[in-house]
């Protein structure tokens, strides 16, 4: 399998990449790690006339804290779109402030693909079972999109529209992902999924992050389900129900039952819709328990 012919341009600045996109429009594709795009091109599911390489752009490689010491709002950690997944696994700031993202990465592909694949690449590829997009939705991250005219912020929860379809326009480049970091709370997180083999696409995945006060009462919870809908699905209504509870086993089972009713999975060759719904319930229960234990 060989890709169709294309022209290659290595951008030296983000502005230059955006200018190329403005010029070539839908005929161009950005490439960073290429771990999703290159297989698509090998199978000729994608046939861009131009590849614009943004892998080496310093502007897209930063992991930064944007804390606001005065505001009571969440802290923010910004991750450049071209940061490789393996860097997140090792970076001290990402490890300390984005534990849920770190847990998700253990399920992403394999060593060889994480060494090359980027955080932003997984997001714009938008496979409905992908782990990183689910984390962005669950944590309510904000995606900064750039084009020749400037920057636009889009909440992750509004970015994913359908399998491999997002709100990004052909002339836009995902520049950075801003993750909220919960301030001053004891936080626990968990990510679980079921796939046919470890490293394969998830049949269903689920993740959760919870914050407990000193008495063990849940003051905040966020959770979501991947692989069971056309896009990663955050479940803020379940999170709100869990806030104020003791996160006891009964509460968690009820929340998992309610979560499984909020999704509408499709069946396919690999799993029926009923099995996916079953997995969703089991996995939500499991991640809520694990996130609770992760705090204690």
């Amino acid at each position: 399998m060989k890709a169709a012919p294309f022209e290659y341009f290595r951008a030296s600045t983000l502005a230059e990449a955006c200018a190329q996109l403005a010029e070539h429009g839908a005929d161009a594709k950005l490439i960073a790690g290429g771990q999703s795009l290159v297989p698509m091109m090998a199978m000729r599911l994608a046939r861009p006339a131009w590849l614009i390489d943004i892998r080496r752009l310093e502007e897209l490689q930063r992991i930064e804290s944007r804390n606001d010491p005065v505001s009571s709002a969440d802290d923010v950690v910004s991750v450049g779109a071209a940061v490789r997944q393996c860097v997140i696994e090792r970076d001290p700031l990402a490890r300390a402030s984005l534990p849920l993202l770190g847990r998700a990465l253990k399920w992403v592909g394999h060593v060889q693909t994480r060494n090359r694949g980027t955080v932003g690449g997984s997001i714009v590829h938008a496979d409905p079972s992908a782990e990183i997009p689910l984390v962005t939705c669950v944590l309510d991250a904000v995606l900064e999109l750039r084009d020749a005219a400037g920057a636009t912020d889009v909440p992750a929860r509004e970015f994913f529209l359908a399998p491999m379809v997002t709100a990004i326009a052909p002339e836009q480049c995902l520049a950075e992902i801003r993750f909220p970091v919960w301030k001053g709370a004891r936080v626990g997180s968990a990510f679980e999924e079921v796939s046919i083999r470890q490293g394969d696409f998830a049949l269903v995945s689920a993740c959760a992050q919870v914050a407990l006060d000193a008495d063990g009462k849940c003051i905040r919870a966020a959770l979501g389900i991947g692989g069971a809908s056309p896009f990663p699905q955050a479940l803020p209504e379940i999170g709100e129900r869990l806030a104020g509870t003791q996160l006891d086993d009964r509460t968690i089972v009820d929340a998992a039952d309610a979560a499984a009713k909020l999704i509408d999975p499709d069946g396919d060759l690999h799993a029926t819709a009923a099995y996916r719904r079953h997995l969703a319930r089991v996995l939500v229960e499991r991640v809520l328990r694990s996130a609770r234990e992760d705090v204690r």
Partner: protein
Amino acid sequence: MSERLYRVSMLVNAQRREAEVPARLTLVDFLRDTLRLTGTHTGCEHGICGACSVLLDGAPVRSCLIYAVQADGGSVITIEGLARPDGTQGTLQDSFCEAHALQCGFCTPGMIIAAHALLNDNPAPSEAQIREAIGGNLCRCTGYQQIVDAIQLASGKRDGGIA
């Protein structure tokens, strides 16, 4: 139809190699067809099997998922680069023979690259860590147990950085 060619220059097994290649030439095809380094195997060509694994700037990657133009300026180590300076097999290669870790041999170069990267990071890995490290490499012959055995064997007798 003539495709535009792009100049690439990279270190391959510590030697400077340069060529003019079409943008769609994958790194594995560059290594095998342009440089005639056929130790790296082409399997699925879409990032599933791991047979084409090489080290790029020290990290194991799939050379079928990288275009040669993207690796311009980089440093690649292939299975040929893991031989001892006198051309004989390295420790990992010996261990694969000793533990019967190959039958058809198709996956072996990729397995050894993955194992080499693991042992560089972690000279004494657990069985679980070994299985994680070769999780992106398919073998259809051995059932993996002898491959795990071979990597454990090599980790016990590794000599100063030469795998």
